């Protein structure tokens, strides 16, 4: 394929120029989506230290090193990397020159930071009136929580997702890892392209304010409207529901999710399918009785599922009407899964320090325009020479002075 050659880049977003002032996870995932689909992304990091995600685990063999955080390596594929001190007047001047040539700026500092640098939307749009300026923050650029501190678990709590995850008789849970950050990053990438599309037709730039808090709250189906519709509040599940559970249940070698879809469960039929005769007991013959004997029903189902290997049960259930069973896969099983393998989801990326490794690949397939991690994540300041000398036309001496003064 020709996609490595810049002029022949067949990717969907080829030609879109992004100045990436993001760090940590939410912002970098936004610009990664743009970059892997072809946008020209220049990542700006703090001289000497860089993006704090460079310090985030996991590392190969658990040995921390600024160029080998696997999370950082994933989040920053296809980007060029430069360093610049945004606090210094010289640094700000250089940034303004870069802004002049960019289609978008993406940043995820807390809301006071960019105005503090004199780099808020109002200032930068004077330099580049068509600029699209995307801000991602914990709670948005306005409102009483604007300056609140947050981590993933706090966004789970205030976003409404935590209250409905876990067991009712225990504390609420969050998902593993950093879902709220990825969720906000995805939404920010969509918003950036909507604004860009608008600019293609009108020439108008604008400021886009993305809230991680709202990214969580916007994806809860009828959790809030249950109150406006019937005055009710959804709760975390009881362990024993007196019905077909919708939570993972143990099979012989792992867990399955026994979803029954459309109409009432046929318990006789389920009994025959699973090979668990107890499910036909009188105790389970009506909704009232099943509720009364909820624990026994749960145990009978466990015996039924426990007769099966999980992938066998998953495959067999799909031959039956109304049974949409799921199979809980560990990361190892995802990598080895026949479906993921068939689709070639995972991709090999050779990083100069990490070496070749297997990464999650395209999040979706486009038939006409490829996805490609066109280069591995940048070393700190790796493209300073190229951007400052070749693009901005600084002399060798000027760049040396900037280095010596810590601006780059």
């Amino acid at each position, binding site marked *: 394929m020709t996609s490595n050659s810049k002029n022949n880049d067949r990717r969907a977003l080829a030609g879109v120029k992004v100045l990436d002032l993001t760090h940590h996870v939410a912002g970098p995932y936004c610009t990664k989506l743009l970059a892997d689909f072809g946008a020209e992304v220049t990542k700006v990091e703090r001289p000497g230290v860089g993006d704090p995600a460079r310090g985030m685990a996991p590392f190969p063999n658990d040995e921390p090193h600024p160029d080998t955080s696997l999370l950082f390596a994933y989040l920053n594929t296809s980007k060029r990397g430069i360093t610049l001190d945004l606090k210094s007047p010289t640094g700000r001047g250089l940034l303004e020159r870069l802004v002049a040539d960019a289609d978008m700026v993406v940043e995820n500092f807390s809301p006071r930071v960019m105005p503090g640098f004199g780099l808020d939307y109002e200032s930068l749009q004077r330099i580049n009136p068509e600029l699209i300026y995307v801000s991602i923050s914990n709670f948005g650029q306005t409102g009483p929580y604007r300056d609140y501190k947050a981590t993933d678990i706090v966004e789970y709590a205030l976003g409404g997702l935590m209250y409905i995850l876990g067991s009712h008789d225990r504390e609420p849970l969050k998902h593993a890892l950093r879902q709220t950050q990825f969720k906000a990053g995805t939404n920010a990438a969509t918003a950036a392209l909507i604004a860009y599309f608008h600019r293609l037709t*009108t020439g108008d730039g604008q400021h886009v304010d993305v809230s991680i808090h709202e990214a969580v709250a916007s994806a809860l189906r009828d959790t809030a409207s249950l109150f406006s519709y019937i005055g009710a509040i959804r709760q975390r599940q009881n362990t024993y529901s007196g019905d077909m559970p919708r939570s993972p249940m143990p099979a012989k070698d792992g867990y399955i999710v026994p979803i029954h879809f459309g109409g009432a469960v046929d318990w006789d039929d389920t009994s025959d399918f699973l090979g668990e005769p107890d499910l036909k007991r009188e105790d389970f013959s009506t909704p009232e009785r099943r509720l009364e004997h909820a624990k026994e029903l749960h145990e009978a189902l466990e015996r039924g599922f426990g007769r099966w290997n999980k992938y066998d049960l998953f495959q067999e259930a799909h031959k039956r009407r109304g049974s949409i069973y799921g199979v809980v896969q*560990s990361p*190892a099983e995802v990598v080895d899964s026949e479906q993921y393998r068939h689709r070639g989801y995972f991709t090999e990326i050779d990083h100069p320090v990490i070496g070749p490794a297997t*990464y999650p690949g395209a999040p979706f397939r486009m038939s006409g325009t490829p996805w490609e991690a066109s280069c591995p994540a940048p070393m700190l300041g790796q493209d300073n020479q190229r951007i400052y000398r070749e693009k901005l036309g600084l002399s060798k001496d000027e760049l040396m002075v900037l280095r010596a003064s810590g601006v780059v």
Partner: protein
Amino acid sequence: MSLPLSGIRIVEMGQLIAIPHATKLLADMGAQIIRIETCARLDNYRMQSFYGNSVEGNFWDRAANFYEQNRNKMSLTLDLTDETCLGVLKDLISVSDVFAENYTPRVMRNFGLEYEDLRKIRPDIVMVSSTGYGHVGPWSDFGAIGFTTEAASGLASLTGYRDGPPKLPEIPYADYSAAEHTAFAIMAALVHRANTGEGQFIDVSQSETLTSTIPEAMLDFTVNGRTQQRIGNEHPSISPHGCYPCEGVDSWIAISVETDEQWRSLCHVMGKDEWLSEGAFKDAAARVKHRTLLDAALSSATSHRDAHQLMGQLQEVGVPAGAVLNGKQLLFDPQLKARGFYETVEHDDTTGMPPLPYSSRPWKFSRTPGGARTAAPTMGKHNRYVLAEHLGMSDDAIGLLEESGSIGTGPTTVRPPRVVPLEEQLRRGLIVSHEEDYKQQLRSHND
């Protein structure tokens, strides 16, 4: 003012969330979405979560889940087993920019609505198929919903209490992750089309989109051969980090302390300065090592405090903390309210429903804000409009379709689903409580 996506027309054969939520995000920003429904079979989301918990009359136009995903859209009913209707749909696609669907691949195959068919009708069409596990591969024809794709993605295996089974939230979370990526995919395709005039086919595997958001776990396995165990709310290198009980029923606060300074502030707010001289909590490493002890001590200190007050006190001194909000508290949350996150929408008179608040989108545009213009459509509401305006069909031709029952404003056979009475929902643990005066409380929300 024109919106960013004014002039973009999307024909949607969507169900549940994976496609409808994606197009909702675009509809808010000005795209015209025409939803294709059939009178022969109701969308599952027209069949649950009814206003007032009642299925009297036109219940299919009073379902919360349908309204959540489908505002600003139009509804056209077509019986696609009828050749005329199938022809109408193809005509409509020929004057549209995007065709988006989330059925198993065999459905579009059977109707002759695959990408290869559509590009003959409209060479620059963008077609999006969103399926549980992807459009090709051995699992491609397996039905799926958010709970099962979350299971397959790898995320569920990592989520849950220490030593407990995997856990899933009470909403189909993976569908939203898929929908958010799908909205991005559609925009990328539209940008490419604007630049080159080329359409294309987009294949979204819902489980793969979610796997793309757990790279730490995937790379820890592929590089280090390691698989994390389930650790509840713990963080490998931060303590305290968890969810702690507060005063009241099922009331909690999430707290995470990343620095020594925050730790000192936490101790001070909790009135526990003695923890500062406790050897077991002396630095970050010690607090991580003794997290069980620390979590127990902190839980007993938070349990007599009000979650919201405590959040305010902790945030005041820079400690990341958040009250765990339930569905009702979300509606009344001061931040979401100040930003106008819940947008009040008026319903069609035929529904008998008052204006109600609905969640919106996680972004604000300074120049072209977008937002809710109309509620989700009652079934078949735009039959006449779409057929006459977009396809130039005559009144007589439309009348014939109506008479034959190929198009309509309700299901061919009206079979109301059983609604579970609120008392039974309580007993079964589906809801934690219900309040009789919710309508009055909501009026104060709208004020």
